């Protein structure tokens, strides 16, 4: 089972995980990590390192989802990319996390990252586009 870490500015990560849990039920081997203002970056790096160990109990790898490419949560996560079995997806959204729940047992972490990147992008929809399709 691929492990999951969501990391973001403020409480966003914990709330996305909480919302996912309320829809899909309990999510094992998944953690949220908040990056607060004024935090020591090396301390956060170590926290993330511990979190990776904790969710990677099976050794199947860990997918880290961050709120924004170029932001601090992403910058710290990216430093783990030299470890095999770690993938980082930036721009987390709820559909992506929900789809993760149903796919984590059947894919390798690399394939899962590719799949969820495409799925997450596809899930961003302007409702008027859908209305247009229904009319036309």
């Amino acid at each position, binding site marked *: 089972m691929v492990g999951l870490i969501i990391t973001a500015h403020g409480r966003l990560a914990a709330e996305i995980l909480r919302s996912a849990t309320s829809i899909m039920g309990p999510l094992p081997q998944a953690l949220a990590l908040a990056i607060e203002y*004024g935090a020591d970056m090396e301390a956060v790096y170590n926290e993330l390192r511990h979190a990776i160990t904790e969710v990677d109990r099976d050794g199947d790898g860990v997918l880290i989802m961050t709120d924004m490419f170029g932001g601090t949560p992403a910058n710290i996560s990216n430093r783990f990319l030299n470890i095999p079995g770690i993938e980082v997806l930036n721009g987390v959204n709820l559909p992506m996390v929900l789809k993760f729940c149903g796919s984590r047992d059947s894919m390798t972490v690399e394939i899962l990252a590719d799949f969820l990147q495409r799925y997450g992008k596809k899930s961003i929809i302007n409702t008027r586009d859908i209305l247009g399709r229904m009319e036309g």
Partner: protein
Amino acid sequence: MSVVLARVDNRLIHGQVLEAWIPHVNADYIIVVNDAIAKDPFRKQLMLGCVPDHLQVKVCSLKELSTMELHHLKRRHNLLLLFATPQDALSAYENGLRFPRLNLGNMHLAQGKRSISRTLAVDEHDIQVLDRFSALGVKVTAQCVPSDRVQRWDCTYHELGS
């Protein structure tokens, strides 16, 4: 064309810099002065990779700074300078990278440091460096993001004031 922002930020390149400061000061060239990242090819590559294509970026050590054509860069570009600590900023300044103002963005709280704002914490060494900047005629101000109120470093009380 000049140094449009010289900033102390322990996070270096991150969301506040890319999304708020760069458009605000209209910077087109980022110089990160940091020995640890400059000597680590992997971290350097990660840092370069998170900068959008329309911006130029250089990550260099304090030593490499002295070999750069700083006057030329200042003439050609709107430079945004990033330092992890005030000490790095002072070393760079003394190595010839001059700037009229120093912006304090993020200096994390650690043992032996006291908070002077939501995002800034200082110890005795930091205080000496900030006072030194003031003595050199560099205006030291605190402003985490452009929408924050600007506060000045007060050399008498070693606090932020208006």
